[in-house]
């Protein structure tokens, strides 16, 4: 890769290019070319001599494009006749359409204050979107109770099936294992006091009051919330939501309402089922390794778990159902127009739902404590 300059003579600067110009080799310095073109004011024209150029690829074009730009800036005529025909044609292609100056996104300087400001604006925008979404859902519910909501009952039935019956295997497995784990951990401590029988109290109260609902909520966040976000996000990408809007159908009513209704209806049932499976898990440990029998375990659980525990658990599960459905649908509706946006929406739905579940659990627990139930 060699370059030399000849002239300028009679306003003409000759650039000699020789050797091999291939990607991977170091290009001649820009400053040298710039110095040659700008230091002498009498240059009218740049010509090339490429007789000794043996091999070239896009590397040569990068160099030629720089010269082209410099010549344009300095109003110097660039004579391309001396260039190989292929290089000349490719250079014409690369310079045919001028750069759109304001099309490039300007990368603003990211100072600390800038970042704080950007995050704050982002936070308020996100809060506004969330408020608008919740408002939209509320209006959809008002229309639903008035009997005016536009949605398909078959969609509601299908969603109930998907987030109800089809979730039973995973809810069974996880809840049974959570019951087992609680019983194992409790048994070690209770054995020290000879109070193994109270393992039924521990597992029963924990599962019915909060753990059953939390586990069902987390499972539904990962399974159904993500699915909601992906389904709605894909519809956004495929312009299906645009098609609904232009038909005058509210996506809130058509897409969000059936999903929210399905989860609100199914979550308490799933929670009840999770409670039973958790208690069964505890019973397996108690009967299997703690010399209790099923009858003892059943009587002890029946005595320990009150109806208020059950209502609190069901209240938890209803709240979690709403949160999971809202998170999934909100992130789906916020989805951009690319495949990666759908992935991000699904991930964000799960994170939002789980964080909401934990925060809601804390709030409800404190409230119950204050009320004294």
């Amino acid at each position: 890769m060699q370059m030399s300059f000849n002239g300028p003579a009679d306003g003409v600067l000759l650039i000699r290019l020789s050797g091999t110009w291939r990607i991977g080799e170091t290009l001649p310095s820009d400053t040298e070319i710039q110095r040659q073109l700008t230091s002498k004011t009498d240059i009218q024209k740049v010509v090339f001599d490429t007789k000794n150029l043996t091999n070239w690829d896009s590397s040569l074009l990068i160099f030629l494009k720089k010269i082209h730009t410099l010549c344009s800036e300095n109003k110097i005529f660039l004579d391309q006749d001396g260039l190989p025909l292929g290089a000349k044609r490719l250079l014409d292609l690369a310079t045919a359409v001028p750069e759109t100056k304001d099309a490039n996104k300007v990368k603003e300087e990211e100072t600390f204050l800038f970042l704080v400001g950007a995050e704050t604006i982002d936070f308020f925008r996100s809060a506004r979107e969330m408020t608008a979404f919740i408002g939209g859902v509320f209006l959809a519910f008002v229309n639903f109770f008035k009997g005016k909501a536009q949605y398909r009952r078959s969609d509601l039935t299908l969603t109930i099936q998907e987030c109800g019956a089809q979730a039973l295997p995973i809810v069974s497995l996880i809840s049974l294992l959570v019951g087992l784990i609680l019983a194992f951990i409790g048994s070690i401590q209770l054995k020290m006091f000879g109070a193994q029988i109270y393992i039924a109290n521990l597992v029963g109260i924990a599962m019915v009051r909060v753990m059953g609902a939390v586990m069902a909520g987390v499972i539904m966040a990962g399974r159904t919330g993500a699915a909601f976000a992906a389904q709605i996000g894909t519809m956004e990408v495929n312009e299906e939501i645009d098609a609904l809007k232009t038909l005058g159908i509210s996506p809130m009513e058509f897409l969000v309402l059936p999903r929210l209704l399905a989860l609100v209806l199914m979550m308490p049932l799933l929670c009840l089922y999770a409670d039973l499976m958790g208690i069964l898990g505890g019973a397996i440990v108690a009967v299997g390794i703690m010399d209790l029998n099923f009858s003892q375990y059943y009587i002890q659980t029946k005595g320990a778990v009150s109806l208020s525990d059950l209502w609190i658990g069901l209240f938890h599960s209803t709240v979690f159902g709403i949160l999971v459905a809202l998170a999934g649908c909100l992130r789906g509706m916020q989805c951009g127009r690319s495949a990666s946006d759908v992935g991000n929406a699904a991930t964000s739905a799960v994170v939002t739902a789980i964080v909401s579940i934990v925060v809601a659990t804390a709030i409800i627990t404190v409230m119950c404590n204050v009320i004294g139930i």
Partner: protein
Amino acid sequence: MQRDRHLIYVSEILQLVEVKKHPDPLNESGEKPKKMFNPKQTTKTGPFIAVRDLTMAYGNFVVMQDLNFTINRGDIFIIMGGSGCGKSTLMKVMVGLKRPEKGQVFYKDLSFWEADASLRKNLMKDFGILYQYSALWSSMTLAENVAFPLEEYTALGHHEIRELVSLKLAMVGLAGFEEFYPSEISGGMRKRAALARAIALDPDILFFDEPSAGLDPVSAKRLDNLILELKDSLGATVVVVSHELASIFAIGNNAVFLDSETRTIIAQGNPRELLEHSQDPKILNFLTRGDTEGLKS
């Protein structure tokens, strides 16, 4: 000849179907009356859609500014221009999917963006839209896709809706595909199914966003013929976003050319007349695929 026969066939069936239609209960409740098919509509002239001083932007980036044009009833109006110049964005503004930064879109002298939400919703019921990627609802079969607007906005019974759906699908050459899902058919068939959905309610205005994009030449030609036949049969006004020259010349009788450099309209008129009479190198370049020398010779 065959096309004429098809036209007569389509027109006759549509009239038969309209006779069968039940009276729309929405009329009694004071909402927008459901129009009936009226071939005389095609004889009306004068501005039907007017775009005035329209500016569209994404954030701070102005896509197009100060757009002014009118579309007459019965026109097949082409919005053309290079890739990324804002054609689809203009269509989104016209159909109510994107609010303009400035300016108005008038339908029959009614300002779309100044109208309240319920009036806007009623206006949108007069639109039939074919999206660039078809936008068929993937969880529904083709029959359910076409039936959905009919279920929402007419009081027709299940049996009549099924007949109408079969008719609409037959009109686009998809008879027998009622129970197929969008994922089970080809891109060209999806476009035609989306067209069947777009004409489900016999709309006044049909919008097509790049209808021929992604189709082979034969399918594209067939879709063009279908657009012409449906326009004639339904008496609809058609707005087409396209940069497919064959389609533009085959179906368009009026057009605007959007220029990404000046960010506004640089030509308006019949595409063939623009090709013959325009002196603007950008227009000639576009309409001749860059072969302006060929035009001269």
